């Protein structure tokens, strides 16, 4: 039986249908029940608030994304370097890994005020806070990837008396690449979450306001549609960021012939 294009891709249909149904149901529920928009706005009201609020929200988003990207860069560099250090030396592992895990288990909301206390520039503090949560998946991914080199491959390197460093650069690091990139993808979305949480903790974002501050501000003013609009913008940025990192991941894996074989 021949079927039209979209029906052959039930995933795509669901991807579009679920938000539409949810949105439609929400709008309908709001209208029928007559809930005032300052308690629960419908999607249409949120859309209107989004369009009207863009001149304020977009610059705020830019501030938050700048913190996010800065944090991702710091987290990537820190996570990868730390993983390499740990992989090269058991002593460094004993010294550093417990520290990294400790940093990971303390919630960011609890640490952020402490960091904000000591770091003069608020922007720097925010980047540090967000990097703190983004860094662990990168570290964990890279570390587990570095252990994935097979025994046969290691024997090959041993046959030619490869040094630890040679084994790391020519075998363990390339083997780790897929895991490193997966860690980076998870870290990227966490960096966004971290940036927002840190902004909340700061209460302001130095000279320029981020998205979290705009959400707080809208709350103080009981501008609930604006709050929702900011949330929508945040979610959309998260999705775009995730898709972007996923795209980079796929491209790099293909480039290095590490992508899983495509089925039929």
């Amino acid at each position: 039986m021949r079927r039209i294009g979209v029906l052959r891709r039930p995933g795509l249909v669901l991807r579009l249908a679920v938000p539409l149904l949810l949105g439609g149901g929400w709008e309908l529920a709001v209208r029928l029940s007559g809930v005032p928009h300052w308690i629960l706005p419908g999607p249409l009201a949120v859309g209107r608030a989004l369009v009207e609020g863009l001149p304020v929200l977009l610059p705020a988003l830019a501030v938050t994304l700048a913190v996010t990207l800065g944090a991702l860069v710091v987290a990537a560099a820190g996570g990868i370097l730390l993983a390499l250090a740990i992989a090269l030396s058991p002593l460094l592992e004993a010294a550093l890994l417990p520290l990294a895990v400790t940093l990971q288990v303390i919630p960011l909301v609890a640490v952020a005020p402490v960091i904000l206390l000591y770091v003069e520039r608020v922007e720097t503090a925010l980047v540090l806070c967000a990097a703190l949560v983004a860094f662990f998946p990168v570290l964990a991914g890279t570390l587990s990837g570095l252990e994935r080199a097979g025994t046969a491959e290691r024997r090959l390197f041993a046959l030619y008396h490869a040094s630890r460093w040679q084994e790391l650069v020519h075998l363990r690091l390339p083997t780790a690449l897929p895991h490193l990139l997966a860690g980076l993808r998870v870290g990227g979305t966490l960096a966004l979450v971290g940036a927002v949480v840190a902004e909340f903790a700061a209460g302001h974002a130095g000279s320029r306001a981020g998205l979290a501050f705009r959400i707080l501000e809208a709350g103080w003013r009981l501008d609930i549609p604006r709050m929702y609009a900011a949330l929508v913008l945040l979610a959309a940025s998260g999705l775009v960021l995730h898709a972007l990192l996923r795209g980079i991941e796929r491209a790099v894996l293909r480039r290095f012939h590490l992508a899983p074989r495509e089925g039929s």
Partner: protein
Amino acid sequence: MNTVLALEGVRHVYPNGLHALDGLDLALAEGSFTALLGPSGCGKTTTLHIAAGLLAPTAGRVRRREDPPPPGSVGFVFQEPVLLPWLDVWHNVALPLRLLRRPRAEIDGRVAALLRTVGLAALPRLHPDELSGGMRMRVAVARALVTDPRLVLMDEPFAALDELARFRLDDELQRLWLARRFTVLFVTHSVYESVYLAQRVLVMGPRPGRIVAEIPVHEPHPRDAAFRTSARFAELCRTVLAALARSGATEAAA
């Protein structure tokens, strides 16, 4: 006999207590081609790892003409190709020379020569995921020989290939060996392959493994398809098969 490598009374017990080898004696004359045959799990791979210096035996002696062997003087073809998927054919073959920090000009020359030898000179930029099983094995052979080793250890290198591909690679290997006269220890499950290639077939008994029979194959090299169909070949195969059966091998070797 000009011995390159000798294992004397070698015993190996793995850390988990598994007794893999006991009383293994083996001597390889310079430039000789020896096949090692035996039931699955009898310790053939263990023997090769000890011969390569990748594993220290629990007891017994390993004598080499040069000890420790200079890096690059031993080539190893593993049962699987063990290619690095992110490197193309050229870089996979070049890997040993790069690990040994040889000069760039030398690497270029050696890799080009070996790719020509194994018939892959036209495809240096392909990656392992773009090669057939036979081509991957050729890359592995080229990589094992790229340092011009004096001792070449091969662990059922062509076992995963179909019969015809295996015949072709056997002939290529024979040609290379005649040209360079390195010493070969060749593990195989195939009685026919061992008789076709080797000057001497060693048969191992079941675990803990040791050599239980030695069958010389005096037929001169190069050998060709005519030898494979000769009565002499069939008779040698029968002899090896009988030795294998006497050794207590439970599974039929082919």
